[in-house]
């Protein structure tokens, strides 16, 4: 199933990169799925990698909001390519990338 890309903004300053990411997912909890008559589905795992190293990861469930917005920092530099990928309950995947400015 087609998934929507994650919007990523990353700023480097003094050796620290601040990443802001907006993932797109309806995040249907069990109760909401029942009400809307759709399959329950939400992101179960999301990670951010730079040069193959994980700089941020989250195991999530129904508590995570619709179109979750994440903000985190890691030690890095301008020009780093940040790759954010996630997988959801039904097995859909998405990978998006952006460079730190």
């Amino acid at each position, binding site marked *: 199933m087609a998934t929507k890309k994650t*919007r990523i*903004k990353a700023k480097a300053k003094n050796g620290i990169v601040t990443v802001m*990411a907006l993932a797109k997912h309806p995040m249907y909890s069990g109760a909401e799925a029942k009400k*809307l008559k759709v399959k329950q589905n939400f992101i179960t795992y999301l990670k951010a990698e730079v040069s193959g190293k994980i700089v941020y990861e989250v195991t999530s469930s129904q508590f995570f909001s619709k179109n979750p*917005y994440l903000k985190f920092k890691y030690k890095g530099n301008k020009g780093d390519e940040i790759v954010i990928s996630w997988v959801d309950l039904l097995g859909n995947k998405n990978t998006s990338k952006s460079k730190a400015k």
Partner: protein
Amino acid sequence: MLSKIIKSSIIVALASTAMYGSSFNVQAEKDRKALIKYFEDKFADPDKNRNRFFPYSTDDELKNNMPKNVKFEDFAIGNYAWSIQGKEQYDEINEMPPYEDYIDIGEEIYTSSKVLQGCFPDVTIGGDYPYFSDKRGEIVTLGVAINECLTAGKQKPFNMKKGKMAHLQAYMVFQTREAGKKTNIKISSQAASDAYERGKEYYYSQKGYLKLSCASCHVQGAGARVRNENLSQLLGHTTHWPAFRLKWGGKNVNGDGLGTVERRVQGCIKDEGQVPPSVTSNEMKELLYFMTYMSNDLNVDGPDIRK
């Protein structure tokens, strides 16, 4: 000799009408300047002037949450202009504004429609609407112009309040913002001036079950608190539409919280306990004409976030 005199007096007459042709906006300019002075006076030092302007606000609010000396251009961001806490939240959401995707969707609507491109070859027109059409004798708002374009091109018009209309306007207004344009409403005829005056009278007339006028909350009431929200001011009210309202986003199944100025104004009028005028009625268009003129010279800064 006589024909020469006649010719030159005609030229002088034409020249002076051209120079003073915009004398139809004399009253509107007075109103606008008086409004700016009122708000700058009101928000210069809320704590010191509490008895004059904020008799119902608390000490804590006035001393700790309201900055001093809010000036003209500041007012465009609504009540975040003078609420420190509100501004913090506003800045945080603006790190990743939820309306960004819709600008792209709006661009797609525009670039895939030869009809729209034909009507609007230059999309940086967000600051020029609404305008008074002397030919038609009525106000034309951006929404009306877009829908008339679609209908003339044998396409289905959009809902005036949300969805594709809001997405398309988000693209056009964003381009206007990028081009650095300002609100630039003109009053160039007696009929236009009359329309402005009717809009102004509507704005200041108390109506509805709650007997409120727009001014009750947004002129006299600006800065006061209603439940847990602070009332925003008329100055700068129209610069940032279409707006992404978090409340609308929460209600929408897809999280699409974008709405046009007509959507918001109807919502406000309903809150007064009235049946709101239809989005294409003369009442609504003239009201928007008056309101937008009041924000002349402010930068177009839409789309924007509001709670």
